[in-house]
């Protein structure tokens, strides 16, 4: 049996969503799917964290939302990364890399 999906590290969800959206515009479910696929089923995000996070990103202007048709022909809200979001993602990534490296160094010391 596969290992149970891991909790997403606190504070990283926004960055992960932005990263996913940096490739293409997706609706909420798409974001969750893509996260799961890209992380090879390790990261699973529940709707109760996903949608508040998306709203937060909207509020801060990192993403834009637009209503479009989904694959099953229902109305779906598609999220797109903004230039502002791009910048934010880049800075978050740098920070996160430094942070992870630091942890790694400590653990492997």
């Amino acid at each position, binding site marked *: 049996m596969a290992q149970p999906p891991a909790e997403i590290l606190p504070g990283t969800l926004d960055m992960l969503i932005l990263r996913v959206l940096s490739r293409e515009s997706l*609706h*909420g*479910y798409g974001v*969750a*799917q893509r996260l799961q696929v890209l992380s090879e089923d390790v990261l699973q995000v*529940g*709707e*109760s964290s996903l*949608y*508040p996070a*998306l*709203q*937060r990103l909207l*509020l801060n202007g990192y993403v834009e939302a637009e209503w479009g048709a*989904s694959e*099953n022909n*229902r*109305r*779906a*809200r598609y999220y797109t990364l903004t230039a502002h979001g791009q910048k934010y993602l880049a800075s978050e990534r740098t920070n996160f890399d430094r942070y992870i490296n630091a942890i790694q160094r400590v653990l492997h010391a």
Partner: protein
Amino acid sequence: MIRQLLARIRYRRFDRDLREELELHRALLTRDDADGAARAMGNELRMRELARDVWVRPSLDAWLQDLRDALRFATRRPAFTATVAGVLGLGVTVSVVAFSLLDALLLRPLPVDRPERLVYLRDPSFSYPIVREVQQRTTVFTSSFAWNLSQYDVDWGAGLQPALVMLASSAMYRTLGVGPQIGRLLAAHDDDATESAAVGVLSDRTWRTQLGADAAVIGRTVRIGDAMVTIVGVTPPGFFGVSPGRAPDITVPVLRAPRLRQSDRRMVIEPFAASFHVMARLADGVALEQADAAFQVAWRQALEAVTPASLPPQRRERFLGRRTGLVSAATGFSSVRNQFRQPLIVLAWFAGLLLVVTCATVTNMLVAGTWGRSREVAVRVAIGCGRMRLARQLLIEGLLLATGASVLALAIAPFLTRWLVSLVATSDAAVTVGWTVDARLLAAVTLLVVMCAAAFSIAPIVLALHVDTSTALRGGARQPAAHGGALGRSLVAVQIAVSVVLLIGAGLFTRSLARVLSVDPGFESRNLYSARIAVTVDPRAAIDALQEERGVEAAAVSLYPPISDRDGSWTQSIAIDGAAPLESSRFTFFNAVSPGFVSALRIPLVAGRDFSWADAAGNARVAIVNAAFARRFFADENPIGHRVSVGLDASRRDLTIVGIAADTRYQRLQEERREIVYVPLAQAAESVGARELFATIRARRAAIDDAESLRQRIAALNPDRAVRLEAVSDRIRQSLVTERALSSVALSLAACALVLSCAGVFGVMSHLVSRRMQEIGIRMALGARAAQVLRQMLGQTMAIAAGGVAIGSAVAFASVRRIEGLLHVSSSDAITYAAAAGTTLVLAAVAGWIPARRAAAIAPTTALRAD
């Protein structure tokens, strides 16, 4: 914050979008992974709330929730809410009215262009020639104007009636930066030629009330005094001239004054008349001190220019020594203000104190209310309501109550204002202060609401925070007793203390009024009437005509009526038997009277004789002096045959004293005893520029027989003026407007405070009794008698009341010195203090007696069975 509010407003759509998005999510999830769907099917509601919270911060939501709760709570107990709001509304109303009047008369800047750059000349009345000189010599003003307000009889088209006429230089409107509403305002050419047509500018108020806001009014003529005046324009609404409380009905150029009233010619040509006030706008960039320094130079030059070189050096010196200076006129210049400044400040203090009493009352009511809610409070705390949230809710409730009270206050205030103004306005001295709601007032009301809410919410909040959750939940009737009980008692003591202060103040004013009213005017005011008659009428013919009336016992004519009050006075410095003139600070008062004046007023003649018609213009000059005059200048000597000299040098006249009359009050009842000289009317004509004369009529009975016929006769004697026939007792009453207003207002407010305090005593004691029901029951079961219980409970009441009375008396004693100027009794008048303390103690005892009786009537069995 704005985005949050927007999100709130768009909440419905937001929520719908979110739900739709979520349904899609679920649908896709079910398609891909049937098992996972069930697992992920978390709490949808929770998720939606979380998503929404991103936009709408929970705090705002909670505030709105609290507001809803407070509203619900208020409407659930309508009687309680109405009582609290009503009590508070009373206090807020009085404060709002006091602020409104204070602001209108003392504080609010003139509603004109940059009022802070306006100045007026201190020491405040000047002659027109000197004003002209000053205007020509001063460079620190961009413009300046002279003005004066006086009462004239004006015929707007429906008969003569008194109106306030402003005489002003045309530069007034330019100086103030005011344009016409319709027509034109005064122009420079109106100032020049004395002979051109008289024109006038109407105030907006008069245009509306007297002339029906008719735009065709331009070009119409109205009669003012002796002249027909053409209306050329109307000032904008809101503009009331420069004197708060004294808004003119119509404004006429200064130099037209003699046409309105022949006798006013002196006013514009005589260099030492004191008829005009001067206001000016400072040149840009000139500070007041700078301007004043420059002005002083111009002032001295102007004095030199108008003072004739021919004057004797001593008098010349005196005229040249006159000083004045510039004072800021940002809030205007008003005689009404000067008259009512102190009473208004007293009113403001009284209002503030009443507000303290009402806040204390409300606190006590809310505290009692919180006790009643201790169960609710406990439940809320138990299910996790934060104490801060609880405090906030109580504060919101307080704010809501205060807001309700202020709405009530704004509804009542106009009526109260009208009543207050009607107390001080008399027929011949209109006080034009109305109720207006403006930004300043609203700001004041808001501040008041917040202050009150904060003041009376503190106690319930503290109390709620100390609610013992477990006891309250268990349903114990036992409330946080000790703490709240002491609070209630001290609040009541404060209320009583404040009430005592108010009562003492009101008592002092009332005693002053009574003292003044009991003053003997020196003549018999009963059945005595006075009426204006034209200065051109022959006094003898007038007296004969009046005495033909059936109800008239005697009549006389004089320059000033008994209790002259606003009709003014005539003073001169005098010398005795040709000695050097007395440079005394005290002038002697003069009145010119016809023969029979002394007897018509029933002033006892102490010695000598009354005037007769033989004391005519060409004959020997004579005078009657009053007893005070005789005492001051002649001590034990007999003054009859001695001479009184008036005027100086060439204009000096010697009057031989032929009689001594008893002392009378000249202008007001409350004045000091004055030295009075009566001269025959026929011999005074040339020295007095009289505008009008007064007939004094003694009626046979209180109601004049056939008053209408008398009025017609007076109208015939005074064809150009409205008939003003008034009882001298009414003149006395009118001369006491300030005293009467202060007394009735202070008494009303003190009575309100006292009633609230007694209600407080009643409430606190009732509460105490119901809380100690059990204990009293036990004691009675153990043999305590009803009388003992009654005495004990009453004792508690009296302890509170006595404490309050003691503090209140001490505070009053320390502070009444400030109102000494308004009093005619000593500010430490023992009777007033005793009466205030006695009244308060008796009423408190009555209020405390009712619950005490209830305590004494407790049946031990019932009390023990409860809980």
